[in-house]
């Protein structure tokens, strides 16, 4: 294997890691701050991807316009889902099951509307890339990575510098005490749930542009992104992105150096390795 090839796959892994980070961000924040383990995050992302595909192919919307429609729409969907979970006082473990049920519902809906076959959203700009020295940088992936980086940075700033972020962290560490200091933990939790869902929608737009779509793909993402969220540390946006990049690059190098079929093992090997040396990762 040449050095160029290695560098090219590292770059591809880095960019893919951005999407992992973006998906892990919403998962990690909702798990760490709301104590809700949201499996339906992935199904929502794929719903976003399919909607992007549909808007693009039926109405000829450019992807950015689809994004503008999808993000607020998913914010509202996040609110609705959170309302259900709050209404029934669902806790961590039950949330895993309820959101799994929602995942299967969305998956069935996708299968019903768009069929189980693979779909490919072809855009004129799908193959555009910039040549930097010997390497090709695909523009779409680069935009996805930059969006992930910007969102992660914004989430980090929001959590550490703004009142809303501080309120969220206070409510997460002790809801009753936070309430005693005047924090409406229910209201702030709705805002966060909406934002997490919106980020899944945005990730969906990028998934539509860069990958092949099939409802069965949803399950493939679950394991990797959960591993990323745990490796990065819950409720830690920068950690999520860093872990996303770590996993993305390791996967890409494994694919190039050994065999693409072993890629699914990479994230879990890293996770198990971390658990061995740090049994209490969070």
């Amino acid at each position, binding site marked *: 294997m040449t050095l160029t090839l290695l560098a090219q796959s590292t770059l591809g892994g880095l960019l893919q890691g951005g999407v992992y980070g973006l998906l892990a961000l919403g998962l990690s924040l909702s*798990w760490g701050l709301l104590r809700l383990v949201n499996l339906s995050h992935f199904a929502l992302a794929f719903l976003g991807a399919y909607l992007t595909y549909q808007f693009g192919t039926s109405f000829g919307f450019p992807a950015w316009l689809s994004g503008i429609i999808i993000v607020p729409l998913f914010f509202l969907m996040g609110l609705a889902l959170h309302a259900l979970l709050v209404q*029934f006082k669902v806790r961590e473990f039950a949330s895993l099951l*309820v959101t799994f049920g929602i995942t*299967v519902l969305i998956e*069935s809906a996708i299968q019903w509307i768009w069929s189980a076959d693979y779909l490919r959203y072809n855009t004129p700009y799908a193959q555009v890339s910039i040549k930097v020295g010997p390497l090709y940088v695909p523009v779409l992936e680069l935009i996805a990575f930059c969006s992930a980086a910007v969102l992660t940075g914004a989430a980090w700033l929001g959590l550490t510098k703004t009142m809303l972020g501080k309120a969220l962290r206070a409510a997460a560490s002790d809801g009753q005490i936070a309430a005693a200091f005047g924090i409406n933990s229910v209201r702030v939790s709705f805002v966060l749930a909406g934002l997490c869902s919106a980020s899944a929608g945005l990730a969906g737009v990028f998934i539509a542009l860069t990958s092949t779509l099939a409802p069965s793909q949803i399950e493939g993402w679950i394991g990797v992104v959960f591993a990323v969220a745990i490796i990065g540390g819950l409720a830690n946006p920068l950690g999520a992105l860093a872990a996303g990049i770590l996993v993305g690059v390791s996967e890409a190098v494994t694919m190039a150096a050994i065999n693409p079929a072993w890629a699914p*093992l990479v994230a*879990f090997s890293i996770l198990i390795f971390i658990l061995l040396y740090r049994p*209490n990762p969070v």
Partner: protein
Amino acid sequence: MNKLSLYAAAAVPLAILTALPFAGAADYYVSYLYTIFFWVVLATSWGILSGYAGYWSFGHAAFFGAGVYATATLAGKWDVPFLLTVPIAAGVSATLAVMIGLIVFRSKTLRGELFALLTLSVTFVLAAVVSNTSIDSGAGVYLSNLPIPALGTTSSGTLYLLALGLAVFSLLVSYQIFHGRLGVGLLAICDDEDVAEVKGVPTFRYKLIAFAISSAIASVMGAIHAVYVGYVTVAETFSVTVGLYVVLMSILGGARHWAGPAIGATLITVAQSAVVSGAHAELGHAGVALALIVVILTLPNGIVPSLLRRLPGHANKAKALLEDRSSVPALPEVVEAPRHKLSSERFIEKMILECRDVTKSFGGIHALRGVNLRIMEGEILALVGPNGSGKSTLINLISGHFPLTAGEITMGDSKISDLFPHEIARMGLARTYQIPRLFHNLTVLENVKLCSVFGRNSVEAGEDSEETARKWLAFTGLSDKADALPESLNLHDRKFVEFARALAARPRLLLLDEVLCGLNPAEVDHAVEMIRKIKSGGTTIIFVEHLMRAVVALADRIAVLDQGRLLALGSPPETMRNPEVIGVYLGSGHAA
């Protein structure tokens, strides 16, 4: 009697089910029932760890699949006789489970979530390994011409009988565990693992055992199923749906009961076969998902426990108790403390516990800075000091809750500071928690009984644990609340359940962490009287207390802690006159 009628009730349908393939029942019915047994086995085996201990595995498919491929490889490729592959398959999965358990059960934070996700990922990992290696090579394995021993019927009849046998076996195993030590320990782990450990439950070992049993049974089902389907593929075997259906079935039926998963499995299998007629597979899928959501939201405990709660007697008692709460109960007479059989011999001045240079830091905070303390057998030592002086930390170190930063603690002749909390508990140390930490899904009696079962020398004591529990409930005046759940008790009663739990463990050394805090004066007097009786029963006591009235009334010696150091130690009058002690409590201006 109850058990006998249960056996009788089970024997008749069992005989009919066994006779079915011999009577030449249509293949359709045989395979329909096989499917039910298949899910009953998987759901019941899942419940043994995940249902009882609350460690939800999303990777049951991995252990099932390990069995499928163990048999596929051994029997299909290497011509090992089918029946011989079954125990090997069980062993493979049990080993896999123990390996995963050794990694993930060490974690103390996010235990359940990590376990759920790690088991989920094991499914993917195993699927990738199997399809990338010569085990499967991505093409699937054919087993259709495999010779299987005929049990006097067709080969599908044989597999049906094997599945039936395994279903009965897994239910029996689950039943036995549920009613035995292991089950009690696992249910306590589900409620509060740290407390279970401190009360003497070997939590790490129990989780490993349950995980191994649960995986081995799933694996045997896999071995049978491999032959039943005749052609195994990675996609079918390791599908996420297997792992999730099992969870749904168990939760629906009631994961904390041995029969729950089996009932859930039967209901869902039957319902699904009714819904999925022909081409609408995804509708069936969605229907199950919707059922899952509705069940979790409305029946979080499952069908079986909800039904059991409706039984006459059960509900009335709980209701009566709730009504009873409004009236102020009269404090019961303090009766003589039951004597421990083992501690009746008289003792001379003998050291029971020694702390040498005990040091504990939490990050940069030095909670204890080298405490030396000797506790004599039979005494009551009061541990006092301002907030943050390290009293509770010392209690937590002695009971093994935290590891020491430096120093050591010995009990009798053995060093206990590097033992697990459950080993310390077995040596005869019991503690209470300042804020009661009762197992909230167990009744008051079950709470106390558990501590008697796992307490000191429970085997040698030779006393019925239920008797012991009732005795200590009587001593603490809680006899009439034996069948209540902790949440229906007020703080006073919950504190006394804590008390009874510690006493039922037959401790040589009892650590009481602010048992009197929050009680009214009459209740305090009552508790003080009770502690005196416990002492006269032969138990050594260390108690942390702010209430000086009680300290003076009870303590033989007082140890004063301040900023992690032992400031003074001696008889109550002597200690209370110590200028340094007065300085700490009232400010140095008063010390002169």
